[in-house]
């Protein structure tokens, strides 16, 4: 139910304080604005309900996609459709609501099965219903038992109890039930498992299997051998089975999968097999009697493979609210009164919020309270003021933190925060990244709410000031979408669309935008002359991205489609690695942790750089885990991978070995730096003791290196990677195999001493 506040005078605020819909929302306090999207979705639902009730053939299953941006009311619409169906069907509708995890279809199935396990009665009722049908058909043949058949079909008696009480042939009827379930679900193992639910003592074993565990021995002995969560395909197939079962019969079943875009973004990186299975699941749902609602951001449809999208029968795009609709909503909320609003102030509310329902409701909630507190009508300045308060609470700090993380992640840790291009405030850039010669660069401007003329003028002024001083690419980041009418001016001043901050997708969008800006700047400067100094930097960026994407892709399982170009990519990575120059250092995030090597001779530093890089390539776990803590889409992908793979003993052993290897190189490096420093501070060249000490250190490295079972790391790479992994591993062994000897040689050479 919506949450409502009381004002100081005890009057209840007619607007919900939280405009975030819950699927359990019900009751008289929920108000649905009958927008075009709502009307269209309702019509689809009505068609479905009529077909279910009429038991029409073919089965009346529907798949409806509801897409829209944040706050546009997707979840609200799903909840409304369930309420509507319940009202239309005298309460006989059953429904489940899932939030799709940003993970695999296996995780989606687990979420589904967990929900279902909490409502086992849904499944049990359907199985018993089928059993009752079978019994009734038989009992109806006799005049004496016909009343029994009627009671069975009406559901007033339990078919299991009937069989027991009247001593009927249980195994014969159960055999028929199993056959029937096989017809309904097209799956022999499910038919067997569901039948076992009617035999005492098997329920727990069956539900454990349903929720994704391997079948227990009592199930295996009865022919149930597969594990539902063994693959994404089996998990999706299982969802289809339940759709067929739950949708069977005259009672409607509605399944809502919310935030599906999150899952598909993750799934998009994986193999086609999973998407094929998802497509098949959609086909099964449509062929069942289930109403499936898929809700998500507009990306849900745009990023979906066309053949998969074609399986979705109906698309509904959530629309913005018009002034008229908001007007009607306010009247409905306020018992027919428009006060304290006016037509004009409502129009302004719609303009500032772009008609996004969540924004409209939040603003109305606060404006109503403010007007009551101040004892007057809502005015334009009040709307602006309250809007600013809402947006300021939106957390500019979070945006700044995310921008910094993204810049570091894509290799621009050299960014300058709060950069002033002149002495005026107008020349301020929130983040400036120098790229190319002549002080050119990319700038990120962060703006507060752009509610009125002055706000937009300020942005225009800033953008033009920066352009006047520097050749640059600019990006404006905004906390809330600016009103439509300001967009052309912003585009003109900044040079591109403003990037709207949304917690789920901001990091990815910013990374894409920023890379595009860097590329454009690069194109304006030929890759020669002074720009050559930037080349390693850009190489590093590409390398990091390539390595990270490669690693994530491998770990998350999208093997097949990547393998084809993987070799090329690896070759490129290795070429770049060979070009790594002293001072570039190891990949992101490791520089601070690891030993400072710059004091060493160039040749030795290069050896250590290569050693660290080799270790990094062997174990992407560190980068993966760092990403897992990021609150963005990349972080979700990494968390998915961590959950899926890191728990396996092989990975843990391999990561342990790789960690030790990393620590070993690091410790050796520290010892070498210390040794080199002490030697350098002393006049008179190397003493025999210095040589002995260096030899001892190299011996210690070799001894420990010998103890580390590198084959375990190989097993890690082979587990997650294609054939190229073996080559990587070989290269790492080449680098590390006689590492200490090379360091020894280089150090002595740098000190002008031969190594004998």
């Amino acid at each position, binding site marked *: 139910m919506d949450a409502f506040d009381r004002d100081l005078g005890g009057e209840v605020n007619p607007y919900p304080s939280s405009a975030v819909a819950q699927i359990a929302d019900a009751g008289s306090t929920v108000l649905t604005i009958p927008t075009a999207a709502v009307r269209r979705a309702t019509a689809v639902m009505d068609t479905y309900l009529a077909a279910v009730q009429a038991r029409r053939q073919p089965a009346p299953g529907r798949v409806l996609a509801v897409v829209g941006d944040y706050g546009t009311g997707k979840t609200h619409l799903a909840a409304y459709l369930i309420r509507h169906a319940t009202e239309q069907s005298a309460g006989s509708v059953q429904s489940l609501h899932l939030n799709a995890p940003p993970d695999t279809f296996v995780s989606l199935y687990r979420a589904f099965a967990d929900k279902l396990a909490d409502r086992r009665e849904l499944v049990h009722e359907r199985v018993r219903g089928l059993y009752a049908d079978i019994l009734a058909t038989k009992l109806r043949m006799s005049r004496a*038992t016909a009343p029994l058949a009627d009671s069975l079909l009406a559901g007033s008696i339990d078919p299991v109890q*009937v069989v027991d009480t009247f001593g*009927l042939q249980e195994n014969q009827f159960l055999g028929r039930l199993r056959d029937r379930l096989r017809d309904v679900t097209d799956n022999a193992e499910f038919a067997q498992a569901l039948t076992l639910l009617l035999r005492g003592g098997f329920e727990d074993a069956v539900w454990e299997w349903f929720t994704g565990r391997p079948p227990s021995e009592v199930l295996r002995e009865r022919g149930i051998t597969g594990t539902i969560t063994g693959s994404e395909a089996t998990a999706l197939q299982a969802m289809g089975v339940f759709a067929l079962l739950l949708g069977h019969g005259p009672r409607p079943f509605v399944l809502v999968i919310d935030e599906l875009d999150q899952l598909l973004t993750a799934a998009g990186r994986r193999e086609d097999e999973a998407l094929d299975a998802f497509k098949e699941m959609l086909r099964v749902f449509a062929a069942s009697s289930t109403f499936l609602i898929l809700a998500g951001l507009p990306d849900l449809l745009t990023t979906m493979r066309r053949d998969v999208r074609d399986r979705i029968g109906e698309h509904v795009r959530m629309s913005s609210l018009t002034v008229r609709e908001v007007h009607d909503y306010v009247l409905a909320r306020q018992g027919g009164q428009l006060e304290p609003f006016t037509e004009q102030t409502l129009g302004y509310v719609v303009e500032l919020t772009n008609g996004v329902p969540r924004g409209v409701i939040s603003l109305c909630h606060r404006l109503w309270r403010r007007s009551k507190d101040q004892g007057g009508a809502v005015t334009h300045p009040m709307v602006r003021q309250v809007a600013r308060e809402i947006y300021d609470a939106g957390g500019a700090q979070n945006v700044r933190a995310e921008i910094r993380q993204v810049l570091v992640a894509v290799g621009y840790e050299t960014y300058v925060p709060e950069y002033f291009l002149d002495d005026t405030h107008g020349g301020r850039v929130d983040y400036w990244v120098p790229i190319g010669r002549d002080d050119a660069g990319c700038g990120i401007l962060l703006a507060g709410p752009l509610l009125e003329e002055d706000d937009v003028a300020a942005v225009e002024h800033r953008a033009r000031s920066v352009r006047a001083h520097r050749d640059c690419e600019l990006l404006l980041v905004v906390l809330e979408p600016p009103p439509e009418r300001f967009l052309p001016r912003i585009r003109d001043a900044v040079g591109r669309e403003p990037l709207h901050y949304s917690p789920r997708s901001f990091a990815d969008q910013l990374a894409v935008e920023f890379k595009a800006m860097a590329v454009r700047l690069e194109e304006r400067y030929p890759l020669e002359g002074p720009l050559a100094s930037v080349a390693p930097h850009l190489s590093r960026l590409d390398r990091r991205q390539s390595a990270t994407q490669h690693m994530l892709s491998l770990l998350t399982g999208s093997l097949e489609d990547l393998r084809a170009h993987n070799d090329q990519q690896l070759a490129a990575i290795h070429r770049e690695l060979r070009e790594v120059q002293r001072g570039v250092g190891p990949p992101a995030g490791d520089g601070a942790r690891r030993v400072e090597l710059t004091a060493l001779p160039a040749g030795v530093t290069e050896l250590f750089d290569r050693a660290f890089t080799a270790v990094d390539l062997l174990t992407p776990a560190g980068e993966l885990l760092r990403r897992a803590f990021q609150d963005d889409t990349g972080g979700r992908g990494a968390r998915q991978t961590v959950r899926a793979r890191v728990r396996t003993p092989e990975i843990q052993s391999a990561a342990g070995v790789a960690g030790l290897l990393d620590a070993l190189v690091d410790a050796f490096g520290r010892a070498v730096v210390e040794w080199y420093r002490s030697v350098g501070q002393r006049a008179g060249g190397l003493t025999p003791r210095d040589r002995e000490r260096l030899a001892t250190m190299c011996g210690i490295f070799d001894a420990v290196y010998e103890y580390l079972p590198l084959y375990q790391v190989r097993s890690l790479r082979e587990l997650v990677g294609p054939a190229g992994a073996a080559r990587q591993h070989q290269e790492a062994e080449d680098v590390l195999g006689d590492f200490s000897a090379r360091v020894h040689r280089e150090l002595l050479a740098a000190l002008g001493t031969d190594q004998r």
Partner: protein
Amino acid sequence: MTGGVAPAGAGGPAPAGPAGGLHPARPPNPFAVPGLRRDVDPLNPLRHRDHVNFYVPVDHTEESFEQCQEEFGDPSYLHHEGRLVLVTGGRGCGKTALTNRCAYWLRGQLGKAGLTAEVLDLTREARDNEAIPQRRGNVCRALLDKLFELQLLTTDLAYEMRDSPDDAYRNLPGCLDAQQVLIVLLPPSADLTEELVYYGTRAPRRVVFFAETAYALPAEHRQALDRDSPVPPVYLQVGGFDHRHADRFAQHRLDRLPAGTLPRLAPTALEDFIDNGRLATIREMQRLLYGLYEELRVQDDRPDEVTWEHISRHFIRRLRDLEGQP
């Protein structure tokens, strides 16, 4: 076989009314069987010798019994081999009653052949939802415990192996008197027919396992039993039946009462009840007719004969009982 299940309950003489005569004496329920505690408990001559007189030749149960007699007509081979007797048939078709009848007869037959036979009832020692290894272990331990209790083991060797069924069964004959034969009634195998292969192929000499299942024996298990058992198992079968056999069962029971004590079944009553090809089970008939006559025998005003309508009304009363249950 024989109409295998029968009730107890009102099996004895009908109780006289208070003061011995305010009500006329109630006739006994003709479908009650002496000694049984529930109306559908299977006949068991092993415990109540007179139950042998209650078996009615419905379906082809009599033929199954005769087949068993034939297989063990000369039981001397049991000195060298063990054997499995497998009774198959749907739930309520009288498998357990047939098993009890065969075991009872076999015990006597072995005695005639100079052997000492002991029937060991392990039918409750395993559950459907236990895995086969666990069931096998439970049965073996229970068997050895009973043998120990009955002091039939001449050495403790097999008893010490009670947790290792393979070893225990291999050593069991050596731990028994040379003339001792064991008739072991196994728990119903339900759909775990795979375990039947174990008992068929591992039956120790001088041990006869009786097993039953309500599920069809898969061809591969049948082949394994025929191929690998020391002596091919005895396969006995029971099944459902039509109204003629149902009538035969009902008349057999009603004939136990003096004519006119209680109304007879109308000639078509059961035909109307079991028609259109449906097969009834002995348990179903027993439960129906026991319940029906339990009501009739306490009525002061009884119909001349029982028709399908009486049966239907009885069903409806039971139905109301069911609907009243949570």
